[in-house]
């Protein structure tokens, strides 16, 4: 998984349960440990969806503030990460709806830098077209596509985070890919080779 590499993992589910119990009692060290264990994935997902560092920070902070404030409501029926990602996706998608800044893309400078460093790993024209095509996807398709194909979440994780069935996640990913294939049809010949 893309996002998993740099994430410090908790030693066990038992340890996580203990941290949650301590955090419920207001233990700041336990809150920080939970934050450290999950913040990378939450921030990365927020950034991929928002394409803006300020927004990604806002969404991440809001996610953890809400999570700690509502920790009493976490019953342990789902994994803590699932529960946390449900908050994260709600915060991010509602936030994006409100600010509407996700249409503003900071493309050119980043792209120029990546063109120099990456060569043909992903062609600049393709990257640019792909980014536009992903941006143009309906929000549901885009969220599932980013979570699965970009950040490496499983369909089970996506279903838990978005509160949908696993089959819905799979169907939305399939439709997202179909739309991207359509949008990138002129690359088909090159990709078939």
């Amino acid at each position, binding site marked *: 998984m893309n996002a998993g590499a740099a994430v410090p993992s908790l030693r066990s589910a038992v340890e996580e349960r203990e941290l949650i119990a301590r955090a419920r009692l207001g233990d700041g060290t336990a809150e920080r440990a939970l934050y450290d264990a999950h913040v990378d994935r939450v921030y990365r997902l927020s950034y991929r969806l928002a394409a803006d560092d300020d927004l990604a920070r806002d969404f991440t902070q809001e996610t*953890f503030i809400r999570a700690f404030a509502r920790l009493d409501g976490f019953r342990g029926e789902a994994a803590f990460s699932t529960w946390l990602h449900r908050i994260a996706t709600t915060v991010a998608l509602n936030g994006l709806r409100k600010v509407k800044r996700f249409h503003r893309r900071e493309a050119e400078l980043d792209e120029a830098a990546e063109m120099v460093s990456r060569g043909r790993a992903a062609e600049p024209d393709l990257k640019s077209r792909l980014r536009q095509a992903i941006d143009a996807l309906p929000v549901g398709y885009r969220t599932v596509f980013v979570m699965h194909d970009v950040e490496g979440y499983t369909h089970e994780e996506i279903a838990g985070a978005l509160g949908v069935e696993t089959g819905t996640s799979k169907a939305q990913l399939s439709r997202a890919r179909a739309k991207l294939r359509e949008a990138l049809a002129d690359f088909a010949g090159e990709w078939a080779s």
Partner: protein
Amino acid sequence: MMHDRFEERLRDAARDYHTPPPVPRDEMWAEIAARREAERTRVVRPWMRWGMAAAAVLVLGIAIGRYTAPQRDGVPTASDVVGAAGTPIANGDAYRVAARQYLSRTEVFLTGFRADARRGKLDSSFTASARNLLISTRLILDSPAGQDPRLRDLLEDLELVLAQIAQYEHGDDAQLIDQGLDQRGVLLRLRAEIPAGPATPTQGGAL
């Protein structure tokens, strides 16, 4: 086949989609901690108001008790202090009033705890309230009101029960606490110590 290749190339290219910068962990945590702290000081939860009221009554009771305690150096004694109804306030009455207030609140708390425990609807506000009441229990045990042997026995049992609730984690704990309440007859004894009517100094002697 062509679809497979397309999806493989698509996933490969998609990894560059809005590539995140390094995660600004400490900066975000500083902001989260500051907002959490601001929230804690701004929001006074109901159980905290309740606890603060109980603590205020205790402090007031202890202050009155000290003021009305016998003095050897000519300072007014208890018999010089007259209650609102014209009757003297006996030494230790203030402590007893504070103790009675505490017992009433503890009875309400334990009744609520037991009802919610039996419905399986406990939440962590109970543990917070139990911790608060534990402090009051210790204060009363250390006050002259705690010298009454019968009250002292009850307070020690309450201290044990409240400590168990303060440590509450899951449903099995609630069952054990509930059984403990029954076996020691804590609620019955608690109710027996609380007379009907408001707790005022002129109704002393209930304890």
